[in-house]
């Protein structure tokens, strides 16, 4: 603190001289201007900490991404027989790891789609509504397009992670993600 500040105590908020101030203010004199100055400096310090926290968060995401890249592409797995599902039918399966629930939906005789079952809003399980052409998240009334997984109504803003499919020899195989990650 500069030396010159100590001999120039500022006036109290009501502007009256020191002798006419109440006893409590004489007992605890405050240099108002200096106090305000200090609090602003501390606010800048607080913002600095916040700024550093954001940098740490950004590099944390970089680390998470590096770990995710090292996992490689998920293995190809048979998830259902073609005859197992009627048109409009659906089936839950775990892919690529146990506990990662995905949902397979048969759109018509030849077309299948599969998505991660976690809603991209707050991870509630989504349910197929083939008659409406959508998937529904009942927690906050979110809706996704059944053909693309894109959000069409409600709070979700990101599409559902889409599982790549391959249909051959009467079986449906999952072969990684087309879009997003689970």
């Amino acid at each position, binding site marked *: 603190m500069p030396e010159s500040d100590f001999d120039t105590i500022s006036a109290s908020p009501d502007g009256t001289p020191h002798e006419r101030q109440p006893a409590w203010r004489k007992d605890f004199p405050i240099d108002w201007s200096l106090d305000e100055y200090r609090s*602003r400096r501390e606010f800048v310090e607080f913002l600095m900490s916040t700024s550093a926290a954001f940098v740490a968060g950004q590099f944390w995401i970089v680390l998470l991404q590096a770990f995710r890249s090292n996992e490689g592409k998920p293995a190809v797995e048979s998830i259902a027989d073609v005859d197992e599902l009627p048109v409009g039918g659906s089936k839950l399966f775990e892919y690529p790891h146990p506990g990662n629930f995905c949902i397979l939906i048969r759109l018509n005789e030849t077309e299948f789609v599969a998505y991660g079952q976690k809603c991209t809003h707050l991870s509630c399980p989504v349910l197929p509504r083939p008659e409406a052409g959508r998937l529904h998240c009942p927690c906050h009334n979110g809706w996704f397009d059944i053909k693309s997984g894109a959000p069409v109504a409600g709070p979700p803003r990101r599409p559902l992670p889409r599982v790549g499919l391959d249909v051959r020899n009467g079986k449906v195989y999952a072969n990684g993600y087309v879009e997003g990650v689970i």
Partner: protein
Amino acid sequence: MKTKGFDRNQRATIIEGIGAFVTIIVVMQLWLFTVTMEAFLSGQSGIALPAALASLVTFLLNLGLYLYVRALER
């Protein structure tokens, strides 16, 4: 950069200005963080590192401004 010869009111004004500037930068960092997290959760991989470096640069700018505030008091 000049750090001496300011009276108390001038220093307070300078700190107000720096505080406003730092606030704007931190809000930009918040925006950058939310965009990066959104991209990460969507499975996009090209954004995280450039965004982290941009955030680091803005932090260094903040650090410079903060050090100037400290120098004002000496």
